[in-house]
């Protein structure tokens, strides 16, 4: 009974925390962008604008739930749900601390995360296709190409970590970093994974599926109300997920002096979330073919080199 209680607490605690975090991030991002751009951002509702989240929620939930008459209705409705579900599932195996985490001892944890994040591609592609609008279609096409190619070396960049830790189990990977964070031996892998993570969450400079200045809003041009909101929550949850994964895989997860494990995990994760937002404030967008060329011609070979060198070192050491 007790274990069940703790398990349920974990499940609902993490789910609620993630939802809350994603919601808060909508406000944090706008405030941070405002700070970096010499302006205020939302600062009127509640203390420093924090209640903006509630205001936005109310607005977005009360909007007319509208499906364009030319859209493929079922898929159109389903698409935004996929991204949320996939990201939440993926979070299920992330070990927050030794005690907090839903399935963090899953022996194929890392594979599960990659599988789930790959599923979220469907959300964008289907949304773009089902909208039956040309701008959405172009956004969906871009998303398909971008995500599939960045998926490849996203996985490859992690093989180094797996070789060093000797496990797919995320808890064990964290435990293996007790003495040395993998960001040191796997620096190249860390950089590649971070870049792939930006592409995976389609944030600037890789936000081509949305490409606001070119495609209006890309794949979600036709969405409004809570369906649009779900894409948004999915995007922010995706940012948190990638940041949490970087923390787990490269920055020693909950390890750190003085502070409790949970604080360390949150600190590291939120620092990366802030970095994501800073990138958005700073960089222009790449062009579609430049992005693809960069992925296949630069990142993929680098990921392979990283894999070869790591493998060679591990083999030499064990021999």
């Amino acid at each position: 009974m007790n274990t069940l209680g703790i398990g349920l607490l974990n499940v609902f605690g993490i789910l609620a925390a993630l939802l809350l975090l994603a919601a808060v991030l909508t406000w944090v991002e706008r405030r941070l962008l405002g700070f970096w751009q010499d302006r205020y951002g939302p600062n009127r509702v509640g203390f420093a604008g924090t209640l903006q989240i509630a205001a936005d929620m109310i607005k977005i939930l009360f909007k007319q739930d509208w499906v364009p008459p030319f859209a493929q209705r079922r898929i159109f409705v389903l698409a935004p749900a996929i991204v949320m579900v996939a990201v939440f599932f993926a979070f299920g195996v992330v070990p927050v601390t030794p005690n907090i985490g839903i399935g963090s001892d899953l022996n194929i944890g890392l594979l599960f995360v990659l599988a789930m994040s790959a599923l979220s591609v469907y959300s964008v592609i289907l949304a773009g296709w089902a909208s039956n609008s040309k701008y959405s279609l172009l956004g969906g096409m871009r998303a398909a190409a971008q995500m599939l190619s960045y998926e490849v070396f996203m996985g490859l960049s992690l093989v180094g970590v797996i070789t060093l830790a000797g496990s797919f189990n995320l808890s064990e990977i964290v435990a293996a970093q007790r003495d040395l964070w993998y960001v040191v031996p796997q620096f190249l892998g860390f950089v590649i994974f971070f870049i792939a993570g930006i592409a995976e969450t389609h944030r600037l400079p890789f936000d081509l599926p949305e490409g606001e200045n070119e495609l209006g809003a890309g794949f979600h041009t036709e969405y409004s109300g809570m369906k649009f909101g779900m894409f948004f929550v999915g995007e922010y949850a995706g940012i948190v997920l990638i940041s949490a994964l970087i923390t787990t895989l490269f920055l020693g997860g909950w390890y750190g002096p003085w502070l409790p494990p949970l604080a360390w995990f949150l600190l590291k994760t939120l620092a990366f979330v802030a970095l994501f937002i800073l990138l958005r404030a700073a960089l222009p967008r790449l062009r579609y073919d430049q992005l693809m060329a960069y992925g296949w011609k630069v990142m993929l070979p680098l990921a392979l080199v990283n894999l070869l060198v790591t493998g060679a070192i591990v083999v030499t050491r064990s021999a």
Partner: protein
Amino acid sequence: MAVALSPSVKPSIPAPAIVGELSAHCAGGVQTLQATCDGIPTLWSDAAHFRELLRYAKHEATPRFRMLLDLTAIDERLRAHRDGQPAADFTVVYHLMSLEGNADLRVKVALQGEKPSIPTITDLWCNANWYEREVWDLFGIEFTGHPDLRRILLPPTWVGHPLRKDHPARRTEMGHYALTPEKELAELEAMRFHPEQWGMKRTEGTTDYLFLNLGPNHPSVHGVFRVILQLEGEEIVDAVPDIGFHHRAAEKMGERQTWHTYIPYTDRIDYLGGVMNNFPYVMTVERMAGIEVPQRAQVIRIMLSELFRIASHLVFYGTMTQDLGQLSPVFYMFTDRERVFEIIEAICGFRMHPAWFRIGGVAADLPQGWDRMVREFLDYMPKRLAEYDKLVMKNRVFKARTKGIGAYTLDDALEWGVTGPGLRACGFDWDYRKRRPYGGFENFEFDVPTGSSGDCYDRVAMRVEEMRQSLRIIRQCLEHMPAGDYKARHPLTTPPIKDRTMRDIETLITHFLNVSWGPAIPPGEACLAIEATKGINSYYLVSDGETMSYRTRIRTPSFPHLQMIPAISRGALVADLIAIIGSIDFVMADVDR
């Protein structure tokens, strides 16, 4: 800078030489010479000979007149003062320019009848296409042989040709309007998209093309501008611009506003250029009226114009980076623009559209403390520009998105009538302020930046450097502001300086006339141009001795620039098109007028 400011000198134009050469080579081509206030050699030809005349002027004359600067028409039917000009119901006016020879040539062709027609010159100049469509649209002059003679500024369902004198200028003169179901259907049907009408194929071989309607409502088309794209994947097979959504009949308004009350309309042509738009207009009127502008007014004008150049370029800079997905610079640049507007507001009382220039000078003298504000800005701005260099111009993603994109050669630029930074990006240092100093620019020291590749990156770089040069000019204005009147003491100055009105009956009378009826400008024609923010902006005014203009023609730089978009975007990607559109720097009011 020379301390003594001299009144503006008239540009030197090798008039007799070119006219003699043309008469010698095209027998019967040159029929009459017309004297104009602007000194541009103006010759009359006829429909049979003018094409040979233009061809010769473009390809063989010395200097070669390679640019078709403007093509327009005049409805002559109600014009009283046409001394010595051949009889005509309509006149088509071709304004050629030789940038290398720094010379102008105006060729006029007289047409008769209700449905005049004239051969096209689209085979001679690419950019004649839109100009001829515009003349067809607004005057109903047919250009035989034109490949695509459709309306361009007005909707296809429009009835009549508005710049004809018999077309009403006011809504109230047009009778009751009712949108009947039939009319509504016809309007809707006219909006339906047929690729064939736009010269595009639906399929080719096994390829089905995708047609993308970009605009008139789209985040990156800078106003109400529509481009129809024929796409294969994301690659642009063809692009057809569609303009006219911002048409506000600015030229027709010129025919019913007094010379003075038309000034605020000019502000809204290039609505980012503010008083810069007043400049060519008042200069042209002053030329016809014979007014010499006092030195203080000249320097005030130059200072305000250059401030507006900076303000306009800042908007360009910010939105260009925004178009490429960089979110932050636009906020910094708008903050800086706000600083410019603080100065402009302190001097003029308005921000974007001060309408501050007057016939004969400016509206009022500079306020106390203007120099402190300007000096603070001059100290503040260079640091910001240096920061933006790091943020934008040296950004590798920005370079990757702009270098080699949308490039054209100098020959292309001349062929399409490209002026301003877009021309200088090709490596030709032609700046109106340098080549033909107007309004006192001959007394200022500044450099004309040039590029080399004519691509998007160079076009941005030109404008960044121009802001630095404008700061130099403003500093010279600050340090050498002459004393004296801010308005000329001339009977046609509007409104006149008032200090003598209550003591002297003559000044009282002119004051009364100029502010009640408006000044009556002597009959004549003139076309004066300036280096506006976006290129050459000229006003071609015809006065019939009345209190308002007989014909107001506004040549704007953005119009030919947009026409070039298809030529430089074929084969590019959709994202490149956005970069190209951004780098051209246009506002739709400047295109559609």
